[in-house]
């Protein structure tokens, strides 16, 4: 377990170094340097030189690289191209994305758990309906389901706000519902397969022949062994939900990390984008460590 956590943290560091190095490479090979932005065109060459010396631009590339890495890892990012401090923007936007992620996972579970337990009998109409729901909801690209839900719930029915954070909690309902519906299909597939597998094991046969209904048997003997698998799937989809929030936050105009990334890509702001990616990498690293711990604790095989 300890060894696993150490390896995970190391690989997290590798990806942070990769991301920051790409940002550095990009900014050091692009034309010109910050002296061209900060000083006016009429500055004398002496002024420019002294500025460059003070800003460390005259140092060797290697030295600048390490200085850059040091400031990157201490969270001391520069200003973005549009001129606001990157660190503040990230600190403000992080809670929005995290809340969106947790809320969508809860909604996905609320959809997936009941649907998987009631649709276990293979030939039943219910099973086919749930399988069809899984295929259809997985076919929807996130932006499409988000647009359609705005059209239906905000424009036509006027139940929820279409954009922004102004109305507090209810402005999270449509965004999380869109994410939740799309990701529930993955949970349904995995959980159903596992529950059916358990039902066809000796324990399942025993429970069924003792007179339990399929749903009862799945609930009583299937739930416990399904937990490690569910933890793994939740961990993995939390990572990709964080990616999907880039789309959802843009459609619903939520000020989160995802919409910050889109903004950085549209403005071609490598530093801003790199900083946001670094924060996302740290979050996903933490998620995968937590889910691995849950898996090991809940699975007797991994409890050594």
């Amino acid at each position, binding site marked *: 377990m300890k060894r696993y956590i150490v390896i995970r943290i190391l*690989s997290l560091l590798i*990806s942070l170094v990769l991301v920051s190095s*790409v940002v550095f490479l990009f900014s050091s090979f692009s034309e010109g340097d910050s002296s061209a932005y900060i000083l006016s065109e009429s500055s004398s060459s002496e002024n420019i030189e002294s500025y460059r010396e003070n800003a460390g631009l005259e140092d060797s590339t290697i030295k600048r690289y390490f200085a850059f890495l040091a400031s990157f890892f201490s969270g001391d990012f520069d200003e973005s191209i549009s001129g606001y401090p990157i660190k503040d923007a990230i600190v403000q936007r992080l809670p929005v994305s995290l809340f969106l992620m947790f809320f969508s996972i809860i909604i996905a579970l609320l959809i997936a758990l009941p649907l998987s337990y009631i649709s276990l009998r293979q030939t039943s109409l219910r099973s086919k309906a749930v399988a069809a729901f899984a295929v259809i909801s997985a076919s929807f*690209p996130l932006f*499409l389901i988000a647009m359609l839900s705005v059209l239906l719930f905000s*424009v036509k029915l006027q139940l929820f706000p279409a954009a922004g954070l102004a109305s507090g909690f209810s402005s999270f309902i449509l965004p999380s519902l869109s994410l939740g519906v799309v990701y529930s299909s993955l949970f349904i597939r995995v959980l159903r397969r596992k529950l059916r597998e358990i039902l*066809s094991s000796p324990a399942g046969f025993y429970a069924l022949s003792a007179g339990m209904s399929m749903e009862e048997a799945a609930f009583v003997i299937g739930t416990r062994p399904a937990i490690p698998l569910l933890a793994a799937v939740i961990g993995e989809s939390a990572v990709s939900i964080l990616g999907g929030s880039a789309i959802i936050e843009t459609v619903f105009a939520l000020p989160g990390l995802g919409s910050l990334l889109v903004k950085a890509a549209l403005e071609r702001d490598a530093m801003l984008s790199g900083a946001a990616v670094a924060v996302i990498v740290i979050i996903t690293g933490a998620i995968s460590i937590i889910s691995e711990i849950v898996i090991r604790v809940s699975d007797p095989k991994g409890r050594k």
Partner: protein
Amino acid sequence: MKKAALIILFTIFVFSLAFGGVGFTDLQIRLMPPSSEHPFGTDMLGRDILSRCALGTLISILIASSVTAISLAFGILLSFLYLHPSFHEGIILSVSDSLKSIPSIVLALFVSAIAGPGIAVLVISLSLSHISDISRTSYAESRRISKEGYVEAARAMNGSTRWIFLHHVLPNMKGYLYEQGISVFLSSIIAESSLSFLGCGVPQPLPSLGSILSDARPVMTEAWWMILFPALIILLLAASLQLLGSKPDTTAH
């Protein structure tokens, strides 16, 4: 089911070849509902949605095919390397594990912030996002096959790694390559349209199903045809690819 999925895919492909075009701007016919002249209607610049949808689909298919080809070639190359007894897979696997912690859309947005928009950039960033997945699964696959008795026998008879790879490993990877290929293709279609929707994908004025839908956002309430047709194409593509790729959902008897 699979036959129906194949027919739908083929129809979409023929449709995209037959009607493709950027569409001419004609402000006099902006936002026209479907008619015999413009069966899918026109957008706010008066461009024909039918031809934009078709070209967008074609571009989407081309991008997804190139990403799939690159990813599969990478997987085949890796599984050949994994076969060498002296090859150390540790570095590749740990780099791929650390790439796994970056969601694919985030990676694509990052690459787009650095390299700017463009189709080539899109293909590269989408292929990059599959590398971690491919290097893991192709490792498992080549491990599974190289443990088979006939591979050991071939090794014992001093068969070269190349021979073993061509005669034993590659033919056995067919199923894996098929499934992996379909899933990469599907996720590339969805990722491309999502990125184009965000404005970081296929650069304008080239159409993409995603950017047609994002053009539709301001006029969503009146111009239903701008949503219905591109959305329908994406959904049909995605659903039929899913049906082609997944094994039927049966594990218990």
